């Protein structure tokens, strides 16, 4: 609030940087999870149809799950007036 303009810019840039880093980590963890849950056959080097379907459903479910958790999390965060 009372921060000088330059510091506000720096804070915004830090937040942006953390968000980018976090979304890349989420991407990595999503890939690992769906691969682990859906791919178990290594007799061929390309995905089979049902593996592809499984991966897409897994990813979509995970994203919907994240959005739902995000909403609930935000509600609880806002209820906790002074979180510290």
């Amino acid at each position: 609030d009372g921060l000088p303009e330059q510091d506000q810019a720096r804070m915004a840039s830090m937040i942006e940087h953390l968000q980018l880093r976090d979304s890349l980590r989420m991407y990595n963890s999503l890939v690992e999870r769906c691969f682990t849950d859906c791919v178990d056959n290594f007799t061929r080097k390309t995905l089979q149809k049902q593996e592809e379907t499984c991966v897409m459903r897994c990813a979509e479910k995970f994203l919907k799950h994240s959005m739902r958790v995000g909403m609930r999390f935000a509600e609880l965060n806002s209820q906790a007036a002074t979180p510290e």
Partner: protein
Amino acid sequence: MAANNAVGIDKEQVFGMAETEMEYRVELFNRLAKTCFSKCVDKRYKENELNMGENSCIDRCVSKYWQVNSMIGQLLSAGGRPPTM
């Protein structure tokens, strides 16, 4: 010059703490999401929608995780021991 430096360090600390606090919240969210996904979502992935049972499981899971987080936070600060190793 010395005063300048002192201010410089303080500002670094403020930014450092803000960053640490944000990292903490992000990690809390990520662990919560991972845990509730494992507890609530059927890993056979028969469809790409969350069904009603999964959705209500998720809501309750988030709520309970939050409670556990508070309980343990209180335990850690009550022990005279702030959450340090």
